[in-house]
């Protein structure tokens, strides 16, 4: 038996798992409908796929939410997991699920997949026969993704960097890399049985003034960590920056470089797709304005040429959205996509060159780390500040990079910290901003720049 299989047995021998039948699950994946695989839809699509966010604690409510989404002509269903499961606290999730079922009040902010189990959840997934995307935020997602794939969920979001740096203060980053290596391997193995399982990275990170160079570097590194384990379908992603031009430039550079770096490790055969997140920052409380913002995000996603868009709702500012509001966004987004025709082709060569130089310089610094494996190189690079994510709460993050918006609302790096931004690019970034101000006014500008959509 391989080491991986031994580890899988230990993980699945959890007291909250009702006897995991390895042979039966493999047989299920092998014979599963192609419609459940987002990788199959990416291959054959002729439009941008629309995917909302959403997860309710009980099976009944999740089923009802999915019915609403299907009526609104959804392309990809979400399954958002509750925060206890994300922290591997299945005991609390179980208790809260029972309370939710008995009292008809939601005691969890998502679907506790491990507690529901794959036999139950599979019924729902195969009933709707739509691809489902697993949305979570889990550093140790080993049991969760085993349960997801066994349920028929063939897109797994996340990664060791993007699910840790924005969400945790002190979960050990080296452990996260090893836990995600398991996830990649399991996804790669199941991918041999039918259409590939798709892995998706979480590009928005902290969604707070993250410069495109940092976003792209982290997307590329999580892509490489996944492809080197044998994953054949991967989505890179980013969220609306606040400047349409910067979004278009980011989209162009990430597509070009994802292909380039995949080929560098002889994984050019893997399918790489681009996902765009509608505005992930603070939303206006005015629900009509929120709808305008969502609509604008859809237009930009089209300009960017995304393969999938992940939607927000008009209730974003006020909490977890109702199923009605959530489905409404899906219908509206589909409508906008349907009428968006004859888009102009915009190319900003200077910005693309500047961004490409920045990304390549950081990537080179990561590869030049003396460690023996890629994950260790990436780990060291985060530890020594070569990769620095603005507003990450994690203790390992350096927080020495400072970013601000220029007059056109592009996010610019005005303090690079230890990140090896080439001098020419650094001078260009700073030249776009007014740096004569004192720190107090810059802090006020940052506060304003974070809240520009409110």
């Amino acid at each position, binding site marked *: 038996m391989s080491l991986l299989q031994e580890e899988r047995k230990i993980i699945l021998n959890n007291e909250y798992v009702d006897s995991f039948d390895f042979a039966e699950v493999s047989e299920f994946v092998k014979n599963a409908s192609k419609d459940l695989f987002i990788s199959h839809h990416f291959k054959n699509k002729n439009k941008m796929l629309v995917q909302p966010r959403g997860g309710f604690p009980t099976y009944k409510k999740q089923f009802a939410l999915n019915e609403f989404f299907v009526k609104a002509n959804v392309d990809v269903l979400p399954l958002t997991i509750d925060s206890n499961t994300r922290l591997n606290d299945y005991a609390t999730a179980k208790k809260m699920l029972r309370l939710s079922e008995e009292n008809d009040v939601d005691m969890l902010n998502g679907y506790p997949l491990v507690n529901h189990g794959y036999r139950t959840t599979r019924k729902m997934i195969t009933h709707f026969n739509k691809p489902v995307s697993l949305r979570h935020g889990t550093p140790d997602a080993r049991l969760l993704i085993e349960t997801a794939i066994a349920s028929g969920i063939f897109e797994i979001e996340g990664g060791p960097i993007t699910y840790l740096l924005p*969400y945790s*203060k*002190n979960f050990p980053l080296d452990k996260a890399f090893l836990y995600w290596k398991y996830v990649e391997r399991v996804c790669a193995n199941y991918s041999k049985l039918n259409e590939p399982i798709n892995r998706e990275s979480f590009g928005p990170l*902290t969604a*707070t003034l993250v410069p495109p160079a940092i976003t792209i570097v982290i997307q590329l590194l999580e892509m490489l960590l996944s492809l080197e384990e044998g994953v054949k379908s991967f989505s890179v992603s980013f969220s609306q920056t606040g400047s349409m031009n910067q979004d278009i430039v980011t989209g162009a550079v990430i597509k070009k470089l994802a292909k380039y770096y995949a080929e560098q490790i002889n994984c050019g055969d893997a399918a790489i797709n681009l996902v765009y997140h509608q505005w992930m920052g603070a939303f206006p409380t005015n629900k009509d304005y929120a709808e305008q913002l969502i609509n604008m995000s859809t237009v930009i996603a089209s300009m960017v040429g995304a393969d999938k868009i992940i939607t927000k709702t008009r209730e974003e500012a006020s909490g977890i959205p109702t199923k009605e509001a959530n489905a409404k966004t899906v219908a509206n987004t589909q409508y906008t996509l349907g009428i968006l025709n004859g888009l102009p082709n915009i190319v900003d060569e200077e910005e693309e060159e500047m961004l490409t130089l920045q990304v390549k310089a950081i990537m080179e610094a990561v590869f030049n780390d003396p460690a023996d494996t890629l994950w260790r190189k990436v780990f060291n690079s985060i530890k020594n500040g070569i990769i620095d994510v*603005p*507003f*990450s*709460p994690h*203790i390992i993050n350096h*927080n020495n990079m*400072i970013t601000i918006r220029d007059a056109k609302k592009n996010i610019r790096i005005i303090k690079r910290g230890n990140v090896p931004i080439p001098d020419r690019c650094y001078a260009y970034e700073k030249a776009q901003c007014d740096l004569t101000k*004192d*720190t*107090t006014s*810059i*802090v*006020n500008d*940052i*506060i304003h720049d*974070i809240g520009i959509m409110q």
Partner: protein
Amino acid sequence: MKVVTGVVGNDIHVVANRLIELSLNARGYEVFNLGVNTYLEEFFDAVVETGAEVLLISSLNGEAEGWSREVKLLKAKYKHLDNLIMMIGGNLVVGSANAEDIIPKYKNYGFDIVCHQVDLNTGLDLLESFIKDREVKDRDTKESNE
């Protein structure tokens, strides 16, 4: 002047915490930022370790109220913290309430400066004037003793 700061409890809201650090640095303080998700003991330990004169605790999700009830009890276990300037700010209740009700409550918990939903620079101005007032008072006491 040395300041220890951070976000109390299981609160992970990091944005304001970074901005507080930047602003304090800009005003010439030496900042020891413990970041989000910090427990009360960690704050006092850091004050002892660094010899800080100011402790600035912040909260966004409002759970500060639960924690603050233990401040006096905990502080009494440490020696030499009598002159520590205690400040708290952010959103200091779960739900909503008036500043007039909240401020006396927190002063009673042992804080010298309490800022409920006050803008960052206004809050730091309050800290500066508090420090100045205290210097004047200390000088007066010293002079009258002489």
